């Protein structure tokens, strides 16, 4: 029941937001609701419920290993939203608040969904719920981004639906009932019809890969992350992508049960490395620090997928990396949002010397950039190092080499851009920005909190999280 509450609370909040009248006070619903949500999520993390085998929704080990990260990220973002929405009070925020909360609910639902169809429904709904927030700015650029997001995302989602049907049909033609709950599918295991499983995997990988933003299905990402509000970028990059990743993990469990494990690893490794390569290439020459974050996100999705291809330890590392990615990406997006609003632009051609205008945000931005490029002692360093180690241990020498090479090039690109933005002489436009944008605690603390969290996660990973990841990895790869 508690796990269903996790889905219901945000929807209740959304309903409240729709009904709420005060424009100024409505944003406070966000932190209020997500506080409840996070509290509940943490309670569930420490004291996981027993999930019935046939249950459609449930806080099973996989959900337990990921959902709290999303919840915490959302909590921090919601605190950031309050001052953000106050600055653009001109635009009505009813839809914004309601849909953001609905997204939280849908993300919880997707993470907890143990039925392929429901998982798909939640993901699709999530996609469409994000639309109005993406073009919250209301500029033509925002509309263009939304359009691409919709059509590419929609197509991808459609493919994943096709994949889900194929999986169901695999069960049917394997003599099963076509029951789409993961437990049933895994239970049917070897008797699933092989060809259909493979076809299903291809469609699902492509479909949910589009949602994750794996190359070459990533093309919507830079546009959306570049145009959407920073906090939205944080939630997309740290929350929505993890939903798609959960889906892939759950499906992978089925595919392995059907005895197609090698095929899955092969495809995952390939698409992961390709994503990292593309991301590294685009990061090398990028000049727009918000689109840079998008490519960095593509890179990290690639890292997750590669880790998933490496077996049990890899999945453990991947789950670790999900947390790190959520927190560091959140920090980056929020601090970048501050800098963008102060500078009034987001390409290095128009922005420089921000350490003089927004010293705190600039410092946080640089630190988070170092963290996300695997500089110790922040979390990503540990997870990525573990992934490299696992890759070597499983004799993926070439894979590991490419992995490290891409990390290096990504580092080159990101450091160059970020230092160019932070150092140097401030532009006159930004100097006026001093008046336009003040670095209040409300906009500086949230990213800082996430940064500290990621530091803490790296140096002293809590045992309960380690256990939860172990349990989740066990759920994906049962047995030794």
């Amino acid at each position: 029941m508690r796990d269903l509450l996790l889905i219901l609370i945000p929807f209740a909040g959304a309903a409240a937001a729709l009904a709420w009248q005060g424009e100024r006070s409505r944003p406070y619903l966000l932190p209020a609701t997500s506080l409840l949500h996070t509290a509940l999520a943490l309670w569930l993390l420490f004291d996981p419920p027993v999930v019935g085998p046939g249950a459609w929704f449930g806080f099973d080990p996989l959900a337990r290993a990921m959902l709290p990260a999303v919840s915490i990220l959302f909590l921090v973002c919601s605190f950031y939203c309050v001052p953000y929405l106050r600055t653009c009070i001109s635009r009505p925020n009813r839809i914004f608040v309601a849909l953001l909360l609905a997204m939280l609910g849908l993300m919880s639902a997707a993470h907890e969904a143990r039925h392929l169809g429901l998982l798909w429904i939640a993901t699709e709904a999530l996609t469409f719920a994000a639309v109005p927030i993406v073009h919250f700015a209301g500029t033509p650029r925002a509309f263009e981004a939304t359009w691409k997001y919709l059509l590419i995302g929609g197509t991808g989602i459609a493919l994943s639906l096709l994949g889900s049907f194929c999986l169901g049909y695999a069960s049917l033609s394997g003599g099963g009932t076509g029951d789409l709950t993961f437990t049933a599918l895994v239970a049917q295991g070897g008797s699933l019809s092989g060809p259909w499983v493979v076809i299903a995997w291809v469609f699902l990988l492509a479909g949910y890969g589009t949602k994750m933003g794996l190359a070459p299905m990533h093309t919507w990402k830079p546009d959306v992350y570049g145009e959407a509000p920073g906090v939205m970028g944080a939630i997309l990059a740290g929350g929505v992508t993890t939903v798609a990743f959960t889906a892939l993990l759950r499906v992978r469990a089925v595919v392995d049960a059907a005895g197609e494990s090698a095929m899955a690893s092969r495809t995952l490794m390939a698409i992961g490395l390709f994503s990292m390569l593309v991301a590294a290439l685009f990061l090398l020459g990028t000049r727009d620090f918000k689109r840079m974050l998008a490519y960095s996100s593509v890179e990290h999705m690639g890292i997750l997928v590669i880790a998933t291809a490496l077996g049990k330890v890899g999945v453990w590392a991947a789950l670790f990396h999900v947390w790190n990615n959520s927190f560091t990406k959140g920090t980056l997006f929020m601090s970048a949002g501050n800098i963008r609003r102060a500078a009034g632009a987001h390409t290095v051609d128009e922005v420089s010397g921000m350490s003089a205008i927004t010293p705190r945000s600039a410092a946080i931005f640089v630190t988070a950039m170092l963290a996300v490029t695997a500089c110790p002692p922040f979390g990503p360093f540990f997870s990525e190092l573990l992934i490299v180690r696992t890759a070597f241990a499983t004799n993926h020498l070439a894979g590991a080499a490419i992995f490290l090479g891409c990390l290096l090039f990504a580092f080159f690109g990101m450091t160059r851009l970020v230092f160019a933005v932070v150092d140097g002489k401030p532009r006159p436009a930004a100097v006026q920005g001093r008046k336009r944008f003040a670095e209040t605690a409300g906009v500086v603390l949230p990213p800082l909190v996430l940064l500290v969290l990621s530091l803490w996660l790296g140096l002293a990973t809590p045992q309960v999280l380690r256990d939860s990841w172990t349990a989740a990895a066990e759920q994906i790869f049962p047995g030794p």
Partner: protein
Amino acid sequence: MTTGSLLLFFVLAVAAGMAVGPRMPRLWLALTLAGAAAAVGAAALVLVGGQGWELRSAVRVGGEAVHLRLDAISAMFLALLGVIGGAGAVYGRGYWSDADHPDSAPGGRLWWDSMMLAMGLVLLSSNGLHFLIAWELFAVSAYFLITIDRAKKETRAAGWLFFAASHAGTLCLFAFFAVLASHTGSWELGPVLGHAELAPLFWLALLGFGVKAGMFPLHVWLPSAHANAPSHVSALMSGMAINLGVYGIVRFSGWLPIPEAAGWVVMGAGAAGALLGIAFALAQNDIKRLLAYCSVENIGIIFIGVGGAILGASHGNAPWGRLLLAGALLHVWNHGLYKALLFLCAGSVLHATGTRDMSRLGGLWRSMPWTAGLFAFGAVAIAGLPPLNGLVSEWLIYSGLFGAAMDRGASGWAAMPAAVALAGAGALALASFVKAGSVIFLGAERTGAAAGAHEAGRLMLGPMLALAGACALVGLAPFAFWSAAARAADQWHPLWAAPVAATPVHVLGLANLTLALLFAAAGSLLWRKASANGLRRSPTWDCGYAAPTARMQYTGGSLGRTAAGWFSWILRPQRSFRRPHGPFPPSSTLVERVPDTVLESVIEPVAGAAMRFALGARRLQHGRLQFYILYLLGGLAVLAVLALFG
């Protein structure tokens, strides 16, 4: 006082220094000095007492139990860290004072201590994960320390180059430690000579640590970084930081099985670095670039020793191998000491005149006699001349190489060329420092900048004197230091039990001492005699030329021209020369620039090609939705092929 408590004090003091540094300079200085002293003390306890210190704590950092260890090898480096860290801190207070640099000095103090702390932890940590953490923290703080003066564009560029190169090296170490851990099953570090399959790992270590050490040809970042950093930072970088690369290679070549070719490659790289590094130095006109290239040379000398040790270990633990390793370790010390001294001298010159361009200086000994004297002192030391410390280690390395040659084993073919290269490098170093010293300090002031110079303040002279004193100490009483180095050499390789072959270092020390006394005696005697005979001052006799001017002096460029000309095939100097002609010639100019060939002829073209490729690839993101969907379809197709037929 036990080693452990001293080390704890070091860590706490420096960490506290980080905390208070930006706000309270005085307290910061006290804490840093105390920490440095504690580090030296701990190292001394290990080096004299002989037994190492080890701590296995239950505290877990990043999921790994803390495991610290200080043996003679790491103690050698820790002691140097203490000396240079302390001296540089004092110097920095005078050189980079809050008065001159209100907005960067506080940050500089913070990063200084964090760098000291990180380097100390690198030396202490005996766990791969923690080693990497400390290593990267060290790189990051070095970056921010090099670029505390972020207003200057070239400083930022130099810093970024360092950061990029160092990160490339770090990723090699990622791979190195990851493979190591995946084979041994844990992040714990220690001798694993059993795993013969790990031998190829040595190359990864050589790359990863070689970049940091500035081993030729991986030194590309070094000249600009050392030249553009504040001088006390250059001293710390060049005197200590690059030695950590040496530490890594020494450490892991002792603990891991080693491929056959390793010794040859290391010694070859060392010899090449020694000769070419100093050739580049000779051709420089920027005093700090000259010193930086000279670091490349000295690292080369050290690597000659290390490579010889590796060869010796693979040739039945020949005694000359020990000699070479001990010599190399001692040279780490010596180089650290006199290179720090020289960078501080260069810093004083820069501080007094505002330029690093030697051809704008000259005659500074009148305005800054102390700095001039100390620079000459450092020049004698770095050229390996008696009676100072450079001689001791180079003498040891020579005798090791001669020993290898006298064995007439295969390794002789590595030792003999190395010895000759070392000789050439030594003579070139002498030439470079005759050039640097004379052009900066002797003759007449070439420009107003030089004329307006002033002697460095007390805070700056003190550390310089201390370092000079250390150089003299190693030179005149080498035996104590030799025994430390020998002890470290014994602990290098688990199979090396027997002590290093006895060498008459004490005789050398005696000779140095006598010589020093005689030099002083003869000098004063001659001076007395000259003044007794009557000493007149008159303008320099320029063979009858009526009106000599300061611009007629021999310049640095012309001083180095002949010898540098022999290396023009790699130096590739860029000259722009407008000759004077006609009866009434207009102003003529000669601008000479000696870029780093490896950087500008190898790295930059490759990087440029990669960049062009990346920029070309960006066109794929052209904003046309239809093609994006086509990409999606294509990805789907490729995945299908991979899944069905892969």
